[in-house]
């Protein structure tokens, strides 16, 4: 008997339509024929798969996606005579966009595009707003010129009555980490007004607002002469 007959018996064997004698002959053949044995194994595997499918719910959890995947898989191979190529193409595109991964990617792309546009727009608005604020500051408010005279503490200590003067200047005087005494522009103005000529000299020589010991001595001479005036101006400033 040929293998073809045994293959037919294998199919009959599955629904139980094979007689006992034929079944014995088939099993004997299967022991000797590896091809028919492989076919039996494949059929048994298909039967198990079908049994699992039967056990499942009628509709898979993501029916749309499953349908999409199946149609996408067969779409390219199965000729559809009634559809035009463009329709086929659109069909494929639509099915592609129906896949969860593509949907997620599309949403990400959309959010990124909108986010980038909004971010850049806000960034420009912020820059313009800063510029407008700067312009308004220039036009509407008096400019603040911050200057401070830095006096060497040791040099200051040599100025007669310096502690009294500095005390009068109050919190407008502070010492930095290098023990320099920093007098605000406002506070130093009292000295500046009374020692104009000296400060001219100091600015020219020192080339900056940082005054050295020699300069302090120059100032001290003037301050000594004008001590009462400085004291008065300072107190007035302090009260203000």
């Amino acid at each position, binding site marked *: 008997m040929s293998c073809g007959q045994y293959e037919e018996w294998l199919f009959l064997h599955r629904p139980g339509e094979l007689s006992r004698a034929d079944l014995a002959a088939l099993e004997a053949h299967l022991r000797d024929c590896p091809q028919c044995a492989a076919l039996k194994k494949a059929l048994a595997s298909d039967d198990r798969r079908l049994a699992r499918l039967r056990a499942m719910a009628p509709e898979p959890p993501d029916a*749309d996606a499953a349908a999409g995947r199946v149609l996408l898989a067969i779409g390219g191979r199965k000729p559809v005579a009634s559809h035009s190529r463009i329709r086929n193409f659109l069909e494929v595109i639509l099915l*592609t966009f129906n896949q969860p991964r593509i*949907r997620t990617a*599309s949403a990400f792309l959309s959010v990124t595009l*909108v986010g980038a546009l909004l971010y850049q727009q806000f960034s420009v608005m912020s820059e313009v707003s800063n510029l407008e604020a700067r312009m308004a500051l220039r036009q509407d408010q008096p400019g603040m*010129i911050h200057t401070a005279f830095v006096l060497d503490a040791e040099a200051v200590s040599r100025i007669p009555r310096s502690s009294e003067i500095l005390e009068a200047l109050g919190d407008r005087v502070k010492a930095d980490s290098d023990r320099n005494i920093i007098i605000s522009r406002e506070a130093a103005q009292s000295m500046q007004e009374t020692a104009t000529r000296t400060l001219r000299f100091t600015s020219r020589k020192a080339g900056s607002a940082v005054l050295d010991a020699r300069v302090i001595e120059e100032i001290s001479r003037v301050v000594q002469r004008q001590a009462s005036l400085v004291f008065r101006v300072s107190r007035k400033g302090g009260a203000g």
Partner: protein
Amino acid sequence: MNGGMRVRSFGVAALAGLIIVAAPGCLEIETKTHVRRDESLNRTVVFSGDSAGVPGACIVLGIDSSWALETRREERKYILTASREFATVQDMARALRGSPGKSVTITPRLESRFDWFFTIYRYSETWSRLHQINEVPLSDYVSPGEIDMFFRHELRKEPFPTKGDSLALADAEDRYTEWDSRNWFEAYYKIFLKGVRELGDPALQADSVERRKDVLFRSLGEDFSAFADSKKSSDFNAMGAEFARVLKNPLALEAAAKESDAIALLARQQAFVEDFAPFGYKVRTEMPGLITNTNAPSINGNIVTWEDFEGALYITDFDMWVESRVVNWWAVGIAALLLVIVTALSIAGIVRGRGRGRISPST
């Protein structure tokens, strides 16, 4: 400081550097630069006022026959408009390059950068300092704080917080004048001394000239106005004659003659500073798109304006810059199209999928 009064005439042009801003010139010069999206530029210079000053002002700004000129009269004002198109900023830079002692050097730069939905443009224009004579450090006379105060008040129009600050700047102006006198004198003196050494005559020795340096400075200060007028002709004899008069030695003329070219160049530079001084300058720049940043003191729409900056050119280069953004509508369009397509396809895909899903169980 007694000498300061006497040398005032010596630095009269320089003094103008700090106080010219308060004294309007007889000729107003306004430059307008229109920057376009394709990075081509149009530069227009409008001279308005007394016609007598126009030729000199044209030279100062490097306006030549390659510019399109148009003249008209408005009431009593003479108006000359010079304009020129430039394909690139490099072309404009070449036209505004200037030359020492003749015209001011202006260096324009234009950069554009793609930034997704925008294109960022940055235009800057640097007017070079009027001369490069640095024989005496300015910091010996004026502190950085005072210079900063000058810029804040004169250029950025910030008012003085107190009268004391105003007085302090007035004092700085005096010292600036003294520095300017010293600076120019040192430049001439150095050249003259080189001439004396080249001459090598025992009757006029460098040592003896150096001993009388201060006398030379003070004496030249007194008669410098006459000297300043004569040097416009680049006549080195004028300077030689002055040195000869003060040193009481006719050989000074020969020493000056040895360095006639260097003296002529220096004189041209000094004359240029004086030529530049009498005019009021205004620079306007029109940018494409929305202006987002600038160091200009005023903005009107997409036009920024700098004015009264000429005083700064006696001390330093003056940099004017502005940034703007132009919307890339094509990029916005592509993004919008992409959004619409993606959204439509996603919705259609879902609808289609559901349709198939309903059919599949029955089949």
